[in-house]
């Protein structure tokens, strides 16, 4: 994958993870990780499809990620997202978005409940989208 596409992928995925754009430093490191490691090369047509689909928009990334979280936790998409999450929690200013809480417990429980509900809905939609794709393209991580 060329640098331009990786940079775009980094932007979309960062928006999905923390709701903001990545700084130049994170984008550089994201590209560098793809250069020095082999873990992020899709191993199947479905893996490639998941990555391409997810790179379209933050919502698409969320949908594909919801599927992967349950049905393909070891997929390349999930690896890319975990790598990026690790980078975001390692540097300013992004780490603060992963740490700041209001301290209001009622809001926290409401937030947890709401997010759980949305996550369940997303999973449902992702099944409708990705089950047919998986049948056509084969499982993540299998075949070329």
């Amino acid at each position, binding site marked *: 994958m060329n640098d331009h596409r990786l940079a775009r992928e980094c932007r979309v995925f960062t928006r999905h993870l923390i709701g903001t754009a990545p700084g130049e430093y994170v984008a550089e490191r994201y590209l560098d*990780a793809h250069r020095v490691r082999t873990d992020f090369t899709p191993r199947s047509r479905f893996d490639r499809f998941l990555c391409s689909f997810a790179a379209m928009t933050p919502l698409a990334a969320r949908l594909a990620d919801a599927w992967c979280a349950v049905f393909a936790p070891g997929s390349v998409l*999930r690896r890319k997202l*975990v790598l990026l999450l690790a980078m975001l929690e390692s540097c300013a200013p992004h780490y603060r978005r*992963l*740490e700041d809480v209001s301290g209001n417990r009622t809001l926290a429980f409401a937030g947890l409940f709401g997010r759980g509900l949305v996550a369940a809905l997303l999973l449902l939609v992702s099944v409708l989208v990705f089950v047919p794709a998986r049948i056509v393209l084969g499982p993540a991580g299998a075949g070329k």
Partner: protein
Amino acid sequence: MSRSVLVVGSGASAVHFAQSALAKGWSVTLLDVGFEGPDPGLPEAHFGELKERLDDPIRYLLGEKYECTLLPGAKGEYYGTPPSQEFVFRELEGHAYAASGFAPLFSWARGGLARAWTGGCYPFNEDDLSDFPFGYGALGPHYSEVARRIGISGAADDLARFLPIHEHLLEPLELDEHSRDLALAYQRNRERINRLGCYLGRTRVATLTRASGERGACTYLGRCLWGCPVRALYTPADTLEELGRYPGFAYLPGWRVRLFRATDGRVDRVVAEPVGGGAEREFAADRFVLAAGALGTAEIVLRSVHAGTGEIVRLTGLMDNRQVLVPFVNLRMIGRPFRNDRYQYHLLGLGLRTAEPREYVHCQLTTLKAAMMHPITQRLPFDLGTAAAVARLTHAALGLINLNFHDTRRSANHVTLEAAEDGSLRLAIRYQPDAGETGRLAQALGRVRKALRLLGCIVPPGMQHVRPMGASVHYAGMIPMAPDGRFTTDENGRSRDWDNLWIADGATFPFLPAKNITFTLMANAARIADAAF
């Protein structure tokens, strides 16, 4: 009278043996590989500030090749070794081994494996020592002496029923908000938790709460995992630095001792090869002390026997503590802000009384403050955006219990030498757990879950992790202190096979209670130097 002694290794046993021997007027030479790590830098910055102030924080926290990112599919551990501590487990070129049922960790670092420890200092009590040829009365003064040397903080509380109180105990570290909440919950439900045979208290840690010499008191930077920049958390490298002040001391890094040569039951010299290649060299002394860690010491003995007689022997009785990690969520802490300028390692311990006192189970409670979150976040069954938000709201509520189980010497568990593919001899390690282990683990886990419920915590299903044998790095038992027999020592660690050879590390332990052995390694090494030198 002979006055020169050569010590192999620079870990907890080696340096405390050396300190006591030097104090008695012996000349001590320490031979060691001695890998060293980077300077922690920015000694006043807390963990969050590192992310703000370092030029390349991603490199610092995740490594040159991002190897410390725990990617999905990596089996097992919640956390790996941070980049700044990788030197502790750096592989030594030319050192080969094969293991079955055991995942050994070797350290060739200056100061040994305890360069990356979490500081737990748990004295053995009379029950723990029942297989040893001496009781607490013989070891107690040495616990006190080591505590004086290194600084141990703790308290005389409910855990004292399992952990004897020795002298020179410093006041305990400040509790973080989560640990304080758990301690208060324990006070409210103490009777019910005690009825389960569970007792909560402050852990004993080799972390200074008062400055001592060139080491500062803990400043709560939250950088414990990455290497304490004020050296409040003790490592044997601190003692090694102190030893340099004795005129009779020499530290020779860059040498890997392979074996010793003996004549008529006496060791004449050790044979060492330079790290990085070159000609072997022999080192002579009047007395020799093996303190290279139980596996390292066993390998030297195996190779020495083979070099001297051609015999390949088997050293039986390898032990290690089985560990089980149980994450928990404290419901009262959900949604609360957390601070990462707090002590990161365990501040509380949970002791489980057992019908057979030797089978005591010791648990360390660690509340999450400065640890990286992505290893945990990715385990939640949501998309990572949602998972990160859930982790943020629950961060202050997360904790981890590390259960430690005892081990006994069994003949099936052994080390020996075997031929490698290239024809050379490599260390072979074989381990299998005893038949009762599964039931023992299940029983203890059930009690811990009940105790956690009484503390207001829940254990998320499916997230507990039984660590492989070898992961605790509390290796012991292959050349035990015993009344007689080949490859045993007397009560003072003196070999029964070679007259002027002592073994001062865990290889001589005849039993392994469920306690980090490092403190006892140090105390026992000091005891050996006092009793036999």
